């Protein structure tokens, strides 16, 4: 990691990366990532599979080394010799890592012996926070996925970090656990700590994050406050009779709207990429063609924003592309990726 120079103008940021590059053999994982995570916020880090989220998390925790570029953690450069910077960082990267033959408490104590000096009293305090006190003496091998995840969050909080890096923290948690985790993370942000959450659960990020960064193919494609992002990318959903879908799509396309047919099970639903306050225009345009909408909703949907920005969009036949560069059916025709 060549993080020797301080990046100018990045003060006040908990995490700042500049032109971060990482390759795994011929495959480019990061192609010049520039992240700016302000202090004291919950930052949602979104991206499709293979976009570079986990690589970024590994770089931020010193597990792997960048080919080029700089990283700053908590306002100071973070390079290969700066492991002590991580004393102020808590992390849960990929799956929580524990010794299966030790209990939850023993695992946290073993981890507390590494890195920043941590008193044992902190272990019991955190077991209480994540609701594992009653199972603290049981072997981790007997824990459910959700319990391991809760223990992983406790492990990340051991050193009372100023910056918390969490990779898919809601994995395996039941609804009550998700709500509790969300409350805990929001409380941490309220107390001035920075929470960096990588997730693929968009609804979860929408409820949790103040700022969102979207990564695709190793580059940041969008970063900003979540509300700003959502209002800039509206969607109107229109329901027409099933046999009028084709005509409606043609009418909307002719009127300059970009419409997409919903899945066949949607029974007449069309999705139009347009700001919500233009819903009446769509209704008028269809009515003038003798097509009457039976339902019409204006939405700001993080999922569609995400899909649009990352290029992974529904195919229009009810099937979703798992790749990052899906084809888009526009007005009933298959076209290339939507240019941004």
């Amino acid at each position: 990691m060549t993080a020797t120079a301080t990046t100018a103008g990045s003060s006040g940021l908990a995490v700042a990366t500049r032109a971060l590059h990482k390759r795994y053999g011929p495959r480019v994982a990061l192609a010049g990532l520039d992240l700016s995570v302000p202090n004291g916020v919950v930052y949602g880090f979104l991206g499709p599979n293979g976009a570079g989220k986990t690589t970024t998390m590994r770089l931020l925790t010193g597990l792997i080394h960048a080919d080029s570029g700089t990283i700053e953690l908590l306002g100071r450069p973070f390079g290969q010799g700066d492991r002590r910077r991580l004393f102020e960082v808590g992390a849960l990267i990929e799956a929580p890592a524990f010794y299966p033959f030790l209990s939850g408490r023993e695992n946290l104590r073993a981890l507390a012996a590494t890195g920043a000096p941590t008193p044992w009293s902190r272990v019991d305090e955190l077991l209480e926070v994540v609701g594992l006190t009653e199972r603290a003496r049981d072997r981790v091998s007997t824990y459910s996925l959700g319990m391991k995840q809760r223990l992983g969050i406790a492990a990340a909080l051991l050193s009372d970090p100023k910056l918390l890096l969490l990779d898919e923290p809601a994995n395996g948690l039941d609804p009550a656990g998700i709500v509790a985790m969300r409350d805990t993370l929001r409380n941490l942000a309220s107390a001035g700590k920075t929470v960096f959450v990588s997730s693929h659960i968009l609804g979860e990020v929408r409820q949790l994050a103040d700022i969102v960064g979207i990564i695709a193919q190793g580059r940041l494609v969008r970063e900003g406050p979540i509300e700003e992002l959502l209002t800039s990318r509206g969607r109107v959903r229109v329901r027409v009779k099933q046999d009028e879908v084709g005509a409606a799509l043609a009418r909307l396309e002719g009127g300059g709207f970009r419409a997409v047919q919903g899945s066949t099970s949607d029974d007449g639903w069309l999705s139009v990429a347009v700001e919500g306050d233009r819903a009446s225009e769509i209704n008028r345009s269809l009515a003038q063609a003798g097509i009457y909408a039976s339902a019409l909703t204006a939405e700001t949907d993080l999922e569609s924003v995400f899909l649009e920005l990352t290029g992974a969009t529904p195919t229009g036949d009810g099937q979703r592309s798992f790749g990052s560069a899906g084809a888009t059916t526009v007005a009933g025709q298959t076209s290339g990726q939507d240019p941004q």
Partner: protein
Amino acid sequence: MRLFVAGLRKLVRRPASYVSVGLLAGLLSLILIAVGATAKQTAERPNGAAALLLVTFPQAYTLILSFILGLGGLIAVIYGAAVAGSEWNWGTLKAAVARGESRSRYALLTFASVALLIGVGLVLAFLVGTLMAVVGASLAGISTSGLSNSDALGRLPDQFGRSWIAVVEEGALGFTVATLARSQLAGIGAGIALYFGEQFASIFLPDIVKYLPFNAATAVVENAGTGGGGIIQRLEPGLALWVVLAWLFGSLFVAALFTERADISG
């Protein structure tokens, strides 16, 4: 210090620690009891008298140590590989590094706790072996008056120290192989292959193989070779100890260097 103590705590709770010592002590006990129980038939066989030395004190002390050096060495390779490999497989090394722990310090202190546990395991196996040799001697009707032989007892600390270093070196090899493989299973497999590969190579390259880690390890205690019928040439114990130390520190250096520089994923 806290990392070393935490490492010890982990190993004490680890089932593999008990299984390793149990396997060594169990097999040793089985052999000693079998020799004692079949003493009459054993004595009538060619070289039968030599087998009875296993339950005849004071010679039994050195032979028990030699058994520990042989089988214990193989178990140490597997144990070292299991400990190092699991740190990569379970992601516990990743968790420690992400907390700002020094990679090489973590690897070396983890091995230091392995080395101490190996010492404890050797003591336990030796005590069990001695006890079972006494039982075997009773079954065979052999006197145990040599048990308190002052010469043999006087040599024990030195022999024991050398044996410990030798078995620790073998554990270090397993530890390093698993570190390089970043895998518990691959480390154990490669460690076992190296162990037997070296024995096999001694048929063709005896002059070279005597300097290799496992052969040098069995040569550190005088008269403690594991046999070989004269095919395997052994180093003189003093030189063997230096060779073993070179392998020990060399392999730990490689493990620490690799851990320090490797990308940690998974």
